[in-house]
């Protein structure tokens, strides 16, 4: 269907037409209007490219991108598409080189993406070669804007995106700075293939209501409960959010909390861990916030679950498929005990995570359930119809915020 014929329900951000999660034309429009449009997307940690000549490849939506550090230490990003005949210039996920040379016809670019040489440019023996009118400087790799925040490099293909700090905003920016307080140290990476539309995962990230209900491990072992203190912060434009849990204590008392969670199967079983070292955490940020989940529109996530810190990048791979990339972090000043604590708590998250494995599947459950119901809508009404910050997590305010940011970009 033509994306312009989608009529958004009159309830606004409290109703989401299921069609947006499966329609191929809407997906195609998202790639152009969001991912190649006026948004900022996470490209790299500065520390992933420590030395001049280091590069990595990633994506703006489905469009391949190269991120480099040049001889002067500056980070650059450009499309991974040769200006000649469209070949991938960099084939490796990460590498190190003095120049970027396309394998197809040996067109070579510097680390800023400028075309420096064309093989057989003058032909052979006066025959062939490029016309004299061909100018190297007119045919570099297409460059992205890049900007930095707290050691994170973001990129945009659009001149219309505001400066990154304004795009993130002070409210959410302060919460990024809270976690990325020191030089990060990568502990490892992984990736999950999700058989669902990318927005179903984003909704899940912003969904403070589901976490302790779907992930019964959370409530059972009191990793987090909705009855603990906390809330959700939503940026002015709606697109960025932070949810947080404060402390482990129940604001309504332990007995009341147990009663509210009593219907969850695992609560009735009175479970306990044989080896509770898994959940031994320290208040490393000194503010008693035990869980903080943060997103930057459209597809970047920063997570702190106790001492497990990770970046997540949500990459669309078609209307019904998503790659979820994880980068687990420690910090340079971690001692051995802290690193071990983070590694143990990494069991909570990722594809096999005690409080995250369900997220790998639940988007697919929705994807399967909405087939044939494209004209129906989901109800996103917990906590009202607005998308303002709230001091409770029994709300879907930050999901509404996402749609508030999404709709004008898509023309809905």
């Amino acid at each position, binding site marked *: 269907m033509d994306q312009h014929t989608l009529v958004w329900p009159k309830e606004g951000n409290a109703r989401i037409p299921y069609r947006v999660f499966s329609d191929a034309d809407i997906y195609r429009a998202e790639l152009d209007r969001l991912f190649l449009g006026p948004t900022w997307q996470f490209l790299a940690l500065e520390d992933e490219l420590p030395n001049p000549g280091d590069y990595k490849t990633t994506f703006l939506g489905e469009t391949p991108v190269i991120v480099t550090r040049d001889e002067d230490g500056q980070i650059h990003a450009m499309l991974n598409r040769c200006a000649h005949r469209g070949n991938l210039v960099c084939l490796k996920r990460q590498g190190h080189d003095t120049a970027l040379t396309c394998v197809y016809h040996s067109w070579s670019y510097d680390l800023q993406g400028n075309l420096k040489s064309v093989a057989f440019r003058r032909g052979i023996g006066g025959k062939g070669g490029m016309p004299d009118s061909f100018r190297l400087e007119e045919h570099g790799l297409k460059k992205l804007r890049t900007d930095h925040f707290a050691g994170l490099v973001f990129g945009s293909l659009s001149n219309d995106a505001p400066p990154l700090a304004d795009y993130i905003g002070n409210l959410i920016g302060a919460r990024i700075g809270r976690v990325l307080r020191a030089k990060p140290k990568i502990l490892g990476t992984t990736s999950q*293939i999700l*058989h669902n539309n990318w927005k179903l995962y984003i909704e899940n990230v912003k969904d403070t209501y589901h976490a302790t209900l779907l992930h*019964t491990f959370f409530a059972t072992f009191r990793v987090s409960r909705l009855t603990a203190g906390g809330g959700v912060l939503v940026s002015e434009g709606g697109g960025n959010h932070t949810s947080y849990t404060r402390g482990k204590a129940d604001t309504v008392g332990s007995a009341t909390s147990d009663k509210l969670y009593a219907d969850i199967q695992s609560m009735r079983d009175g479970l306990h861990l044989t080896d509770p070292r898994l959940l031994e955490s320290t208040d490393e940020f000194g503010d008693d916030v035990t869980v903080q989940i943060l997103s930057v529109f459209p597809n970047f996530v920063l997570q702190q679950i106790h001492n497990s810190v990770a970046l997540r990048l949500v990459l669309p791979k078609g209307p019904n498929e998503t790659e979820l990339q994880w980068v687990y972090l420690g910090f340079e000043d971690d001692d051995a005990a802290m690193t071990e604590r983070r590694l143990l708590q*990494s069991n909570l998250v*990722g594809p096999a995570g005690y409080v995250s494995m369900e997220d790998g599947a639940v988007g697919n459950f929705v994807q399967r359930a909405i087939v044939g119901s494209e004209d129906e809508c989901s109800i996103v009404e917990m906590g009202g119809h607005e998308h303002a910050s709230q001091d409770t997590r029994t709300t879907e305010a930050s999901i509404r915020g996402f749609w508030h940011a999404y709709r004008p970009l898509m023309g809905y």
Partner: protein
Amino acid sequence: MEIDALYADYAHCLDDDALEDWPEFFIDDCAYRITSAENFEAGLPLGIVYATSKGMLVDRIMALRKANIYEPQRYRHMIGAIKIGAEEGGVLAVTANFIVVRIMQDGAMILFAAGRYLDRVVHLDGRWQFAKKDVVLDSRQIDTLLAIPL
């Protein structure tokens, strides 16, 4: 021969849904980790599953049975190319290859995992047991989720 039997028993335990018996393949202060070749070769310590005791393996199974939610699924392990390495102080290094097919309740099957076991086995209480098992996946990608151990 005994080492071959250890791996055969290990595969059947997981594939026959006898998950409560799985921790018994390990000594009390074992180390069990599932990681990718990419992390492993980069020397990065992360485990997708990271356990430093048999108790944590018991907890993993308990959580799968009682807390975690996932669609019914089974594995079929094929373990081969078992290579017995050096023995040092009663600890035997063993490397083996594996592939794991995952079968969902509707019959959908995929080649879910391929990789190597990099193991340390010891003879304790009359049987061979794992003191350490690094499950090194050839791919960095996991389809949907990883619930049942490898």
